[in-house]
């Protein structure tokens, strides 16, 4: 298993989606956001599992919203990045950026 401050690829995707959605980040919106932006098939269950794992790692926090009729009377669970989550996300992105340095010609040719 990866050390706590290293992010897996799908974890990175989920964190970015939560960050992007701000106050409106809950299961359905996160799924929708990822689907729209990545345009790739998504296993719904894996998103929930990943959200759980990120919360367990202390990168995400969550709170219950109010039940709404459109959800058949069920409450939402809103996610937001914890400071530690933001820090890990930043570092991962920076690592990725540094790894990309000087690779532009190669990557463009692909």
């Amino acid at each position: 298993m990866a050390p706590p401050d290293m992010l897996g690829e799908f974890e990175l995707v989920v964190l970015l989606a939560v960050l992007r959605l701000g106050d409106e980040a809950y299961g359905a919106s996160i799924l929708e956001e990822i689907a729209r932006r990545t345009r790739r098939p998504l296993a719904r269950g894996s998103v929930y599992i990943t959200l759980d794992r990120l919360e367990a790692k202390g990168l995400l926090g969550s709170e219950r919203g109010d039940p709404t009729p459109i959800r058949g009377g069920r409450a939402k669970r809103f996610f937001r990045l914890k400071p530690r989550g933001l820090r890990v996300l930043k570092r991962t992105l920076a690592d990725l950026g540094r790894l990309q340095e000087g690779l532009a010609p190669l990557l463009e040719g692909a």
Partner: protein
Amino acid sequence: MKTRPPRLALAILNRTVPIALREEIEGDLIEEYDRHGRTRFWFWRQAVSIAWTYRPRPAMKEPVAEVLFDDARSGFRSLRRRPAFAVVAGTLLALGVGVNAAMFQWADALWNRPLPYAEPEHLVRVFHAREGGRENLSPPNYFDLAEETELFEGLAGYWSPSLTLTGNGEPEKLLAATVSHGFFEVLGVAPLVGRSFIPDDDGPGAAPVAVLGYGLFQRRFAGDRGVVGRDILLDGTAATIVGIAPEGFSFPAPGTELWVPLRLPRDRALQGGSPYRSFRILDVVGRLREETSLPQARARLASLSDRLSREYPGSNLGFRLEVEDFREVERGPLRAPLLLLGGSLFLLLLIVCANVSGLWIARLLARERELAVRVAMGASRSRLLRELLAEGSGVALLGVAGGSLLGSWIAALARAAAPPGFPVPPPFDRGSGSLLVLFAVLLPILLTFASVPAIFGRGRNLANALRPGGRVEGGSAPAGARRALVVFEMALASTLLVSALLLLQSFRALENVDRGFRGESVYYASVELPFTKYRESYRRAGFFEGLQERLRQAPGVERVSLSLGLPLDPQAEFFVTRSPYSVEGKPEPDSGKKPEAALHVVGPEFFETLGVSLLDGRGFDARDHRDAPPVVIVNESFARTAWPGEDPLGKEVRHDLVLLPDDVGVRHVVGVVSDFRYYALEREPEPQMYVPHAQSPWPAMHLLIRTTSDLVSLQTEVRRILGELDADVPLAPLSALDDVSDAVVAAPRLRARLLSGFAGAAALLAAIGLYGVVSFSVASRTREIGLRVALGAGRSEVVTLVVGQALRLALVGAALGALGAALSARYLSSLLFSVRPFDPWSYGWMGGALVAIALLASYLPARKALAVDPTAALRAD
């Protein structure tokens, strides 16, 4: 909200998603479903995908099926690593199962032979039970019985003479049955074409009719249905064909091809007459009314018997009427032999199982170190046990599969080799159901035996095996189990040996019975005169006299004679009936019940032809012609019974039964001959009367010829002479007289041989098992033997050590086997002749055989033990 999401999908989610996440996940799904107008299919797909993600997963545990498969695989691998065991054990089991399967199929075919009659469960055979045997019914008794209409739905009497079909080609002798008119109806058999017999066919004056058998119909009439209504010549008399029996119907005897009505006289005058009442020729089959049970029928017949013996004591006293299930007629004689053979083969199978188990224990002991290492490396006990069970089951399955193949192969061989008409196992149709039953019985046995070692192996402390010299354990549980198995094998083999020895002795005794006559180089053939052409008795007497006269001149012929029946022919009782008689100087018994003796018709020189010695007076010769005073020759038993201590010569004998109407039945004794076995080898000679053929010229006789020439030239000669005398008289092929009595001992001989074979196989298997145990014991006691030798034990002590063990096991087995034999004596006794079931010789020989087996089995191990070098043995391990 447009539509409710699928409830079932939600329910599935409820079961699978952890409770903390349930609300959120379901809410998300419902929201999306509603807002984006997703289909129900979409909802379902999402729900299933989520449910799969959260499916229950056992914590690091392999699924059961995989574990079992794994066990089976490693068991198989282990068998493949040492194929010798699998091959030997599998072959042994396959042989055991194979012979049992074949035997079972065959027994089933015999026992459950489909009877060609409707509802055979209501059919009964009616007969007279008398002291020491059973008899058929006389026609008057049969007519009285037929009046019991509330008991029987129908009743039929029959007997089976042979008839000669002439005209339309070569004269042919046919096996025919003379039957009463209800015959086909009682059996529930409808003719294929035409009709069966009606009451009008069945009387002395009725027009002769006949029903053809299917085979005859095809053979002689090319299957032309137009033959119904046409006439055929039977024994020179025209009879009208009224019907054709369906294919496969050949009752009462296999090979019966023609049925004609009985046409017995029913005159009141004849009914009371003693001779007619004693003429017990009819077999009787009845169909009980559906509501009548066998015990009810018995009770009813008992009162009828009482009435008959009150009214006709002369013929009926001591003859009770009895009924038995008709199926019992065929099954009765089969029971003891089938039980014997089937039981023996089953014991053989048990021995095979024990042997395989023993082999397997040996294999486990040899693998002990390997197993111990595996336990030390963390393999669980249950895992090892499962693997061993899988291995055992593998061998058992191999054996059963191979055995069933072998069994059907043996059955196919038997089918091909069996004479026509002999019941054989059907090819996999009806028999396969009972075959399943057999395997249902066999499989657990095989599995039990195969798992014995695994169970015994459990109690072992395998850790011992890793210590240096840790295998020196004579008294360990597996070795003990192996010895127990060997004792078991020895016991079963001993039981079989005793049975085989008893049967062999019984067969030898039967073969060596003093028959009282010499049948070698005597040939016989039946000669039957067409009745119409030889209606007058002088013609019949003349023909046979001429035939004998001509034959005496033929080359090589020493003696020629005639006889009604043949000695030791199983049908002798049918040809030669008993007649009540009274003798000069003896008052009739108060009960009115006369003594009975067999009444024979024989030609001149009969006793000389058979080599029967004349004790007093003279034999028959030319003096005893038609017009001479009527004479009779009696045997020793008759003379002893009738005139104890008196000279029988010249005494008068009256026999009530006369074969021909012009016989008065009063004769004077001219000779006494020694007794000889007539009806059966195992039956003591009974009183007999012989009358000369010239004075009782019966039309159907057996020609007896003692000759020095061979069968073929004799046959040609007889045919030539017969053709010259009368071309219309058919001649059956000549046969050796000894063949008749040989046929009688054929069944006991086959039984004795089969059982000897089984017992031999059993003894061999037991010997192999014993050898295995003894040699293993020697191998594992090498150190001990070395030590003993080092301490001064001599060669004889070493040998005693090894042989003693083998002897102990064999003798314990023999003792148990003797017990088993004593228990099975009850089943065997009906098959024994002149040997008691507790014959000490048989038991003694069995003991001797077991000692021999023990010595044989310990020979090689003893040599090995003698070769032990004490220094090397003590240094080993």
